[in-house]
């Protein structure tokens, strides 16, 4: 039987781009959150964690409203950046970044917080800039947390369904990711195809998570 690989490729493309963007935004944000003393920190922490508890459809619903060209935000993005967010791949990326944000920020932030403050202070007294300290001292010492954050957000993006359903719909090659494709195939009673997608997702996620746990154990053994 000939299966359409497009939904799977789309899924991994979405997960890869999302994870990349998350690293660029999420790691500096986690660093800031770990050390900041601003008053609204609890509020920010709550907002970051919201996707963990909200039904994906709630988030999807609001994103759908925000992305629509009739809304101020959607209109702005469409006219000024030239991106159509509703029912498009770019929209999925934006949604996934928001939705997977806590999965990257939480482990990385607690990684930073777990480092003794004296490490940063030592680098300071040795004449190192914030950036040098960040790159050469802080990041290398939270490798296990970084790995956990990257893998969790990647895997979580693969497993996303509700948000994609709400804002992406089911456009082949654009927004039809594997999770949607499974639903689609089941609806048309095409169990073989559904099983194929499901099995691939299951195996990939299993292998990714397993390698993280194995790797982390090795790192911990090395450190301890």
């Amino acid at each position, binding site marked *: 039987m000939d299966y359409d690989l497009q939904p799977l490729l789309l899924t991994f493309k979405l997960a890869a781009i999302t994870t990349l963007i998350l690293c660029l935004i999420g790691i500096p944000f986690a660093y800031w959150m770990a050390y900041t003393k601003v008053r609204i920190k609890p509020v920010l922490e709550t907002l970051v964690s919201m996707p963990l508890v909200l039904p994906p459809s709630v988030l999807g619903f609001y994103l759908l409203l925000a992305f629509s060209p009739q809304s101020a935000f959607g209109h702005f993005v469409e006219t000024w950046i030239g991106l159509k967010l509703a029912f498009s791949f770019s929209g999925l990326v934006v949604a996934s970044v928001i939705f997977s944000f806590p999965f990257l920020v939480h482990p990385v932030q607690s990684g930073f917080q777990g480092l003794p403050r*004296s490490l940063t202070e030592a680098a300071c007294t040795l004449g190192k800039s914030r950036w040098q300290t960040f790159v050469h001292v802080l990041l290398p010492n939270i490798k296990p947390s970084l790995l956990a954050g990257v893998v969790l957000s990647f895997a979580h993006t693969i497993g996303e369904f509700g948000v994609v359903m709400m804002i992406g719909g089911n456009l082949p090659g654009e927004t039809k990711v594997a999770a949607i494709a499974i639903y689609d195939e089941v609806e048309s009673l095409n169990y073989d195809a559904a099983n194929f997608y499901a099995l691939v997702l299951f195996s990939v996620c299993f292998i990714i998570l397993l390698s993280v746990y194995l790797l982390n154990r090795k790192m911990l053994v090395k450190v301890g």
Partner: protein
Amino acid sequence: MIEMDITKKLFSAQGEFTLSLQLNIEQGEFISLFGESGAGKTTLLRCLAGLEKPDAGSIKVNGETWFDSKNKFMLPPRHRHAGYMFQDYALFPNMSVRGNLEFALRPGAKRQRVEELIELMGLGELQQRKPDTLSGGQKQRVALARALAAEPCMLLLDEPFSALDHATRVRLQDEVLRLQRHYGLTTVMVSHDVSEVYKLSQRVMVIEQGSIAKQGSPAEVFKAGQSSGKFSFAGEVLDIETADVVFAVTLLVGNQIVRVIATPDEVKNIKQGDRVMLLSKAFNPVLVPVRSS
């Protein structure tokens, strides 16, 4: 030359008090800050390094202003080049011993300095090891070498020997003294160990509740001006036994245990665990309780 005149509100277990200090430290001097924990010694050291900001006052080092509350100026710690040795050593776990030293070099500094320090501190065997695999004493030596690698203008030691066993402690004290002389570094050490302060420092400041209660040479400060003895050693009372009319007192002096005879008068004011000075006055040793406060 360090000129410091600062105040800062501190919050301790006993309540709120104000750290208010005015002190001058000469170039090349070895100063100890002595006192109970929570008296503000470490805060003073951190203010000097730029890790904490005083509420008011000024800090000047060799004519250069480091802090001035009137002009709202504070030189960031990375521009101060104060070699700070942390209580937990703060070695970078991701770098080898050599890596830690190399990271500390100033831009443009010669690699030769690392070789020199590795040689000087006897770290040759350890240079490829990661900090996690080192003993406390070894970590301490690396921390000291790392602080020196950055060519500091002063050395700030925060209870540098508190986590070490006695033999290591004595060895490292000698090492610190040797290096301090070698580089002629102005050094400020926080300590609550009398024998350490006695051995290392030229001047000691007793800090109590945020201000200097007493200062002078260790001999002046700890002997309370009572003695005219020729030799003096700081020690700790391990045991006091009665032997007929006199007492036999077992003392720990440095890493030696000695037993001396004491009169009931001398023993009256001391008990087990007390810090004392052992003075040798002609042939009969005299015991005088150490007054640290």
